[in-house]
Structure formats: C-alpha cells, structure tokens
C-alpha cells in the first residue's frame, strides 16, 4: 500500500517538473505559431502585405480587422536591415517580434514624430561593430537591437472607417525594408 502512495506522490512531483519543462519548451517546438504561419506567405527581407482579416481567411487568430497590415520577415545574418514606413492619415505602428513571437519593441507614428518612420534593425554584434562616429549621429538615427537574428516586423495602419481601408493599404504599400548595402553600412 505504502508503495502505491510513493508511486502517486512521486508521479505528481515528477509531473510538476514535466509541466515546467514543457511550458518552457513549447514556444520552441510550436509548429503553428505566428512565425511559422507567416513564413510561407511572406518574402524574406521585403515587405509583404497581408490579406485583409476576414472570417476563416485570417492568417493568424486575433487579428484586428480595422487595420491594414504588412509583414517584413527578416534575417539579419547578411547585414543590418533598413526599414522605412510612411505614416498614414489615422494611426500607424511598427512592432518587432523575435523568432519566438515575443514583442520586443513597438513604435507608433506619434512617438516617431515624423512623416516617415525610419529605423535600422541589427543584432547587438552588428551594433557593436558600428564605427565610433556613427554613434555620434545615432540621435537622429533610430537603431534597434534584435535579440534574435530572425524575426518579424509587423506594420499596421488603421482604417478608422471601412471605407478608408484602401488608403491604409496604399500607405503601407509604400513601405520598404531591406538589407543595407555593405557600402552604406561601412560609410
């Protein structure tokens, strides 16, 4: 009898360990996470507009149907990335996600304070390799460190009324993202 008690208590304790390990491992092994869903739909290091969210046709769950969105899926292994997003009439935001779908940075048109949101995205190693004088002018050049070499940048423009969706999509269509040419990076 006592043996069975030991087996049950041991099982529950071990179950706690299994639980903690599986919670930590789950984000790494998930096959239907946002990055995996978007990978076949999007080009690497280029802006791809996402189809408008509709019932059953949304690429991801819990998308906000009031927004036009586009994705730049990036891989920084070949160099830093430059991103330019013109601001739309209502509200524009740019959110950065790691390969494991963690939002590590987000900025909106007002906090950017300009007509065009302009950002440089690089890994912390690439940031450390920047020449000294580059950092002096860093104040007017927004540099963001990506915790992972790959990830997602999601661009969103609000269509405050359904009729404004075209305009929001058009403003995102003018957005660009791409690997900086080696020359520009060295300059």
């Amino acid at each position: 009898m006592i043996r069975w008690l030991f087996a049950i208590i041991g099982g529950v304790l071990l179950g706690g360990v299994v639980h903690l390990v599986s919670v930590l491992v789950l984000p790494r092994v998930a096959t239907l996470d946002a990055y995996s869903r978007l990978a076949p739909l999007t080009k690497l290091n280029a802006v791809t507009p996402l189809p408008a969210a509709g019932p059953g046709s949304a690429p991801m769950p819990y998308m906000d149907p009031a927004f036009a969105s586009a994705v730049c899926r990036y891989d920084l292994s070949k160099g830093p990335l430059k991103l330019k997003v013109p601001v739309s009439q209502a509200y524009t935001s740019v959110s950065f996600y790691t390969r494991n779908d963690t939002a590590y940075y987000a900025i909106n048109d007002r906090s950017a304070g300009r007509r065009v949101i302009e950002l440089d995205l690089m890994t912390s190693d690439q940031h450390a390799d920047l020449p000294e004088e580059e950092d002096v002018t860093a104040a007017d050049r927004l540099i963001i460190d990506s915790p992972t070499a790959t990830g997602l940048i999601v661009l969103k423009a609000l269509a405050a009324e359904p009729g404004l969706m075209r305009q929001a999509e058009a403003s995102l269509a003018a957005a660009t993202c791409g690997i900086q040419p080696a020359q520009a990076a060295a300059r």
Partner: protein
Amino acid sequence: MRLIFLILVTLMIATAVGLGATWMTATRGVNVGTITIGAWTARPKTGTSDIDPYSRASVARSGELPVGTGDGVTFSAAKDDSGKLLNGQCDVAVKGVTPAARFWTLTIYDNKGQLVANSLQRYGFTSQEIVRGSDGSFEVRITSRARAGNWLPTGGLDRYMLVLRLYDTPVGVATRTQKDAPMPAITTVSCP
C-alpha cells in the same frame, strides 16, 4: 517485476499531470500580471520582452502576435459583469466610456480567435465610427438579430469573446483600477 510496474505507473502519472497542466495553462492562461477591470482582463506584459513563460506558451499555441506595448493594450472579456458567459443567442449591451487612448477598436471573435461571419461584414467598431450619446458615452448591442444604433452581429454563435484594444494609450502595467481606466460595462439584457 513489481518495481518496474510501480516505476511505470509513476512515469504515467507524471506525464499525465505535467502535460495536462501545461495544456490547461496554455489554453486558459495563468493570471500573472493580469489587470482585471470589471469583466475585462489584460496582460500588458505580453507585449514586452518581460513576457512570462505561461503567456509565451499560450501565444505560441494560439499562433497570434500580441500587441506590442509601444503600440497598445488588449483587453478581452468572455463573461459579462455578473460572471455569465457571453452567449450569441442573447442580447448583450456594452455601455460606458473607455480609458484615454488615441484610438480604440472593439472586436468580436469566436473561441478560436476567428472573426464572426456575417453578411454586413461588420466585425467590430473603431472609436471613430461608433455613435455616441451627448455625454460621450456609447452603447453597443451584440445580438444575433439586427438592431438600430451600434449593432454587432453574433451570427447566433453559442460562445464568443469581446476584445477591446486601446492604441497609443497611457494604460499599461501601472494601471490597477476602474479609476485609472474606466472600462465599459457588459450586461446581458435578455435571453430568448
């Protein structure tokens, strides 16, 4: 022989308990850093690098991308103010004012996070298109049959959830009470 059997039983219990608990927490979420105001809950930390492991697992499982903190905050509700599950057959009213934000959107989703199909292609409201009373408050009616005013169709779904997203807002990790963030009340007015 008996020892092997006991060890097998122990391992089976461990697997069932461990994976069961993980499945439960990944589907339902765990209240780490949760703000609850009325029927609404938000986890502002899911939009930062400080996201807790449970929310991280739940995000990976559902396949959504959480709204980043510099962008906005997501509040969701699956029950009304009296704790009753939202039912698509019933007449539900969302009434009141929202916290300070440049824009907000109110959207209706089914339990899987998909939009609810309807012939009007009306899936939610933005702060700009909603019709307000003279005091600035609004009332949205969520029913399966058409209504005058702000009407959100449920398509007769059994269960649904409401998501209120505030964009460019001071509401966040430091928000605690209704005073900081006045959320609209959700009431089930009548059920057939």
